[in-house]
């Protein structure tokens, strides 16, 4: 309202009041954004600060007292890594996540290549099935997959978790890559074909090198998903020596073993990798989220 007034108003006094109104609005806007960021960041900060406080400090005062009487200790991290098995869980999380990410990107890429660049009957039906599968509740796979992998004797290895995490994300991955692969100009592919290039050659030497950014988007999204999942590893790896960080932290939180401050250190160790990734590779994360959501 004041925007149009300030542009069209004739008299000087009116202009100054609307300018004041504008000013107030700007102040309100910046205050609101600041408060939102503050509320959203405070819980993260409280976790980080608590990891450096001693158990006795934490039982007496809130974490914000650390800013008044700063007595940092490192014992929480030492305890988390050596006594509660979090060090081992870091390795398990890597073993769980890295092959999952690689497999998801590869399987999605060949699937999307076939769906986007080849013409055949059932193509559209398959693509729509992938759209539908994205929304399926993962709980649906638990009972049948547990029976299946028990029968094969593969529970207690990472193989079931890799396969299930890949299967749950590949429909989304195909959907995400499909749009990009379909938009690669046909001239480029046709020229290579005339030169006698085979389909694998076209895929590996033309399509994949052009798709670095979108493949990175899929990789970072699947990294976050697999690294952060609780339910699937909880069921297929259990809370023993194979448990990844999410399972380990959840069991620490439920049993209260090791105390609150050790738990916060364990939790912070579990979030540091994804936090660093999302800040440094934010561009790819954003592209992946948008490519997967705003379509249609």
């Amino acid at each position: 309202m004041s925007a149009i007034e300030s542009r069209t108003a004739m008299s000087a006094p009116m202009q100054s009041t609307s300018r004041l109104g504008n000013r107030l609005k700007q102040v309100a806007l910046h205050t609101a954004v600041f408060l939102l960021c503050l509320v959203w960041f405070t819980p993260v900060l409280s976790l980080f600060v608590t990891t450096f406080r001693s158990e006795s400090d934490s039982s007496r005062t809130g974490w914000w007292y650390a800013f008044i009487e700063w007595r940092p200790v490192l014992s929480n991290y030492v305890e988390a890594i050596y006594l509660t098995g979090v060090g081992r869980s870091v390795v398990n999380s890597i073993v769980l996540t890295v092959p999952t990410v690689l497999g998801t990107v590869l399987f999605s890429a060949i699937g999307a290549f076939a769906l986007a660049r080849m013409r055949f009957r059932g193509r559209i039906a398959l693509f729509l099935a992938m759209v539908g599968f994205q929304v399926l509740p993962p709980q649906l796979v638990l009972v049948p997959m547990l029976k299946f992998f028990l029968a094969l004797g593969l529970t207690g290895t990472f193989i079931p978790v890799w396969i299930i995490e890949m299967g749950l994300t590949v429909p989304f991955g195909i959907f995400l890559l499909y749009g990009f692969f379909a938009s690669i100009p046909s001239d480029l592919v046709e020229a290579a074909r005339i030169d006698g290039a085979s389909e694998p050659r076209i895929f590996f030497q033309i399509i994949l090198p052009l798709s670095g950014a979108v493949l990175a988007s899929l990789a970072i999204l699947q990294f976050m998903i697999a690294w952060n999942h609780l339910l699937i590893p909880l069921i297929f790896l259990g809370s023993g020596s194979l448990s990844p960080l999410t399972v380990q932290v959840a069991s620490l939180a439920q049993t209260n073993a090791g105390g609150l401050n050790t738990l916060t250190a364990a939790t912070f160790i579990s979030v540091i990798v994804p936090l660093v990734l999302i800040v440094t590779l934010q561009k790819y994360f954003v592209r992946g989220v948008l490519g997967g959501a705003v379509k249609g």
Partner: protein
Amino acid sequence: MSSQILQLVLGLLAMPAVVLAIILPGELAIRRFPQKRQSSLRPWIWLSPVLALVGLVIAYPLAASIVFSFRDAMASKWVGFSNFVWAFGSAMRPVLVNNVLWIVVFPLLTAVLALSAAIMLDRVKYERIARTFLILPTAMSFVAGAVIWKMMYTYEPPMQPQTGTLNAIWTAVTGRMPIAWLIDRNVNNYALIFVAVWMSIGVATLILSAGVKNIPRELVEAARIDGAGEWSIFRFVTLPSLWPTILVVLTTQAIFSLKVFDIVYVMTNGSFGTDVIANRMYTELFVKQNLGTASAIAVLLLILASPVIFMNIKQIKSGGGE
């Protein structure tokens, strides 16, 4: 530890090996056919790893869950609809009621907050930095979020110093008794829902921000010249143009609230009247070891999610997906 490293190396080698072991021999095999036959066979060779994977992890469990839901606890004999009768019976009713609360409150609260954030961030120069603050919780696991908020909600008896952030603020500002956020049945479900909101705003804001930036400037300018105030611009320009995007956010979050597990599992494990479908399914499966009721719950989730599944398919079919 060495077994883990071995599995890591194995996994890293196996993934490309499986893909190459299917595509390269497949391409060689179809080379002897005429061109036309080659191009009709080729898609199925390239799709076979995906079809095998999705068939195993999604299609087969889908069918098997439906079968198991009509069988007994050991999946050994047919029991008709009794698992579903149980699922809608008095034992499950409070759980279903909680999920209804999640499905209504969580998407709405997330959408309203994310929309406000998207509109506000669009008007400030430091949008990227502010956005990073909102995305940070998204990068963390729900387990970590649950641990953090268990601390935020910490309750100490009245007159004790409050070490939880929320109760410290609450008692200082209002001078009233501290609240047991996770135990008090008037607030505990909302307290859990807010954790999910805190973790989901980032992605929802990203999606809505892209929508806000896609609204043609001329449309807003024209409304302004016609004398429309901020509120009418929001009501008659922003909201209608963003509606499809808002719908994407709402449906995604509704599906999320159906399957919410981690937050409840870590923070209350379903006690004090906070249980939800997915956590109940975990209990049925691992504590009670009942495959029948666990599968019935899974099928129930599928039925509840199916409107969104069909809506998405319809939207892609009619829209620019092809």
